[in-house]
């Protein structure tokens, strides 16, 4: 993996004006880098602004100041090579379209022919384990399967950067583990750079090469923790590793730290 940063966030500030007057600073001077081919997790206490960061990275929200540089260019809208998976799968997939049609939609919007789009969609759905279910509608599928469709939709676009906003938060623990391993598999197979926002510390450490820890709002980067665990992660073996527990304790302590204490 090269050390060229595919994503560079520099001095990101985001302030919201409140409807009744006054302002709320969600993000204060956020800076970090994501190298090509890495998996980076962003964690922080609830309400820290993790989703706000992700929306700025996705080009869905304009920062108040600072820059988000993707592949060397400052972004103003969602870049071509970026795709995302959101937490609420039932409200981000279109229920009146089949899984295949859902996955095809962004491809068709990019100008692919129906045949091409269909082929890519079927391949993407197979790579997330949904072969044979291309014709089903999202509401006919379980939560885990719906999120796989959302993942296939993102993957079919061949993104260089995959953004994930608490993608497994709405799923049960075992499904979560299966999907975490799916992300690792996809990362290995397609060499996609992944940035995952999560409140689940275990998940962050399990998946990532680096963990960006945000503080309470106004959120700054408390620390960027390097995860030195062996690369072939395994739900049981990796979590048995004493280094895992140490890293977990370290990150958890930071996330739970009261900023007014020290």
């Amino acid at each position, binding site marked *: 993996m090269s050390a060229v940063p595919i994503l560079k966030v520099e001095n990101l500030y985001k302030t919201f004006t409140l409807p009744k007057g006054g302002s709320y600073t969600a993000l204060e001077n956020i800076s970090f880098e994501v190298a090509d081919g890495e998996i980076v997790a962003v964690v922080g206490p609830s309400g820290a602004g993790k989703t706000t960061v992700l929306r700025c990275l996705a080009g869905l929200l304009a920062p108040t100041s600072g820059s988000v540089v993707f592949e060397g260019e400052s972004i103003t809208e969602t870049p071509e090579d970026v795709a995302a998976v959101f937490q609420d799968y039932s409200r981000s997939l279109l229920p009146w379209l089949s899984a295949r049609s859902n996955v095809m939609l962004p491809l068709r*919007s990019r100008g692919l022919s129906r045949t091409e789009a269909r082929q890519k969609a079927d391949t993407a759905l197979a790579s997330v384990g949904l072969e044979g279910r291309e014709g089903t509608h999202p509401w006919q599928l379980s939560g885990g399967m719906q999120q796989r469709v959302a993942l296939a939709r993102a993957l079919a676009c061949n993104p260089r950067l995959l953004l994930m906003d608490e993608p497994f938060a709405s799923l049960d623990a075992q499904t979560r583990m299966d999907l975490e391993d799916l992300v690792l598999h996809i990362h290995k197979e397609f060499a996609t750079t992944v940035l995952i926002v999560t409140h689940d510390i275990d998940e962050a450490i399990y998946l990532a090469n680096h963990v960006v820890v945000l503080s309470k709002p106004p959120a700054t980067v408390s620390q960027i923790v390097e995860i030195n665990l062996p690369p072939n992660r395994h739900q049981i073996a990796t979590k048995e590793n004493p280094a895992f527990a140490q890293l977990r304790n370290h990150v958890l302590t930071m996330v739970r730290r009261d900023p007014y204490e020290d």
Partner: protein
Amino acid sequence: MRRHTSWAIRFVAPLLMPVVLLGGYVLFAHWQSNLYFPSLPRIYSAFKTTWSPHGLRLNAWPSLSNLLLGYPAGLLSAVLLGILVARLRALRVASEPIIAFFLALPSVAIVPIFIVLFGPGPGTKQLIIAQAVFFQVLVNVIDGLSTLDPTLAQSADLFKIHGFRRLFLVDLPGAGSQILAGARAGLSLGVLVMIVSELFNTRFGIGAVTLSAQSSFDFPTMWAGMVFTAIIGIGLNGLFSLAERPYLRRAGLLQTTTGA
């Protein structure tokens, strides 16, 4: 495991209310012995006479043909204009009072104005029906398209789904339930206005027959007209339910039990 709705619920229950109403009417008419409430057999015989094949051609067809032209015209124009208005915030805000005004105007009051403006022919009636349907549906189209799920919109924005694809595959189906509700309300309104439009200057029509029977004290025929109108309304509503099923099924809104 799917639970099949029992035979009793599917076929017997819907008939209970009409049976109760009929029974209630029989008792009431017998108790009142009033000219205004003739006995069921007399209503039935008037019904058979008024709505004989000849009667249907003479009076039912003109009214229904007006509805069959006026309703789709109102519906389609409302959807088209609604799409336009929903897109432009300024237009939406500006049009709200006008739409509210026309919605509040009772159709009975509008009929004479339309007749003066456009003459007494069937075209005028179709126009009156169309405008009533138009405003009813318009309000729902604008509302439906203005209150789309932001999470869905966020995904569509991210994956750059724009233009006609966005309109037909994301926005309109997203507003589908609301638009269908408006279209259904518009249908009932259309039937009502179909009758009302025949209040003045009309010789042939369902409303004309009913109203003329009323003013000549031929109450069995009047009731025959009202019952016929009710049957039309129920029938059209039933057809509407059938027509909207494919959309509801595809959108997963017909689920009574979930798969997983």
